[in-house]
C-alpha cells in the first residue's frame, strides 16, 4: 500500500511538473562549483528566496526532482481547502509562533529518508527584491540530518508565460563552519550570514546573465 501511495505521489508530482513547466519554461543557470542535479543518494536541504506563492512549484521546476518536500507556515496549512492540497504534494507544517520541535524532527526525518526539503529561510514572502535576513533553523536541520544546503535564487517578478530564470548555487556543508563535531549557535549564525551573502551573489550573477 505504501509503495502504491508513493507511486501515486510521484505520478502526481510528475504531472504538476510538466504542467507548470509549460507556464514558466524555467531557464536554469549554475554558479561555479554548482551542479544542476541534486545528489541522488542523500537528502538535500534546498533554500530559496521567497517572493511569491508560486515559489515552491518553481523550485520543483528548477531542480526537476520529484522527491521533494516543502516546509509551509501554519497560516497556509491550516486552511480548509489549501491545507489538504498542500499536504497531498508533500508540504509539512511548521508553526512559527512556537518552538515547533515536532516539525523540525519531521524535517530531519525527511532529509534522512533522502528527500530534498525546500525551506524559505527569510521566514515569509518578501515584497521587495532585496533578500531578507536568513533564519538559522534551517542550519540546525541540515546539521541534525548531516546533509548539504543548496541555495537557489529565483528571479522575482516574472509573470505567467514569461520565461522564469533561476540560479543554482554550490552546496554548503555545516562541518565547514564548525570547529567541533557540532556547530555552536555562533557558527550557525555565521553560516546563515555566509548563505545570505552567497544568495546576493547569485542574484547579481543572474542579473549579469540577463544583460549578456
Amino acid at each position, binding site marked *: 500500500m505504501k509503495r502504491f501511495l508513493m507511486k501515486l505521489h510521484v505520478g502526481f508530482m510528475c504531472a504538476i511538473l510538466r504542467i507548470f513547466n509549460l507556464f514558466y519554461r524555467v531557464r536554469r543557470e549554475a554558479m561555479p562549483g554548482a551542479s544542476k542535479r541534486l545528489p541522488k543518494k542523500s537528502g538535500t536541504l534546498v533554500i530559496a528566496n521567497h517572493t511569491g506563492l508560486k515559489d515552491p512549484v518553481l523550485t520543483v521546476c528548477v531542480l526537476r526532482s520529484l522527491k521533494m518536500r516543502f516546509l509551509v507556515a501554519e497560516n497556509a496549512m491550516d486552511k480548509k481547502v489549501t491545507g489538504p492540497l498542500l499536504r497531498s504534494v508533500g508540504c509539512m507544517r511548521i*508553526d512559527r509562533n512556537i*518552538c*515547533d520541535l515536532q516539525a523540525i524532527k519531521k524535517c530531519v526525518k525527511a532529509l534522512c529518508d533522502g528527500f530534498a526539503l525546500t525551506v524559505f529561510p527569510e521566514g515569509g514572502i518578501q515584497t521587495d527584491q532585496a533578500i531578507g535576513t536568513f533564519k538559522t533553523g534551517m542550519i*540546525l536541520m541540515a546539521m541534525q540530518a548531516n546533509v548539504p544546503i543548496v541555495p537557489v535564487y529565483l528571479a522575482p517578478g516574472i509573470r505567467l508565460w514569461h520565461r522564469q530564470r533561476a540560479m543554482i548555487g554550490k552546496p554548503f556543508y555545516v562541518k565547514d563552519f564548525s570547529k567541533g563535531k*557540532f556547530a555552536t*549557535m555562533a557558527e550557525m549564525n555565521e553560516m546563515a550570514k555566509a548563505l545570505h551573502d552567497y544568495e546576493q551573489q547569485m542574484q547579481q550573477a543572474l542579473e549579469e546573465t540577463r544583460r549578456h
Partner: protein
Amino acid sequence: MLDRLSVIFTQVMGDDFPVDRVSCDSRITSDLGLNSVSLLYLVLAIEEEFGVSFSNESISSFETVGDICRYLEKNATK
C-alpha cells in the same frame, strides 16, 4: 544534573558561554539569552543526552532551567 546541563549549554552556545550563570532559577530567554532556535538545539541535545522526548507543549512551558531539571527528573532514562 545541572552539571550535565551546563555541558550541553556549552555545546550549544559555545565555549564563551558563561556557564556559571546556569542555575535552577535562571530564566532561559531573559537571563541566558536563548532564542527559539537555540532552545530547539538545546532541547535536541538534551533528548540525546538524557534519553527523553519533549513535546511542543512541554517546551513552551519551560521558563527556567529548574523547569527543565524537574521534567528530566520525572522522565529521563539515562
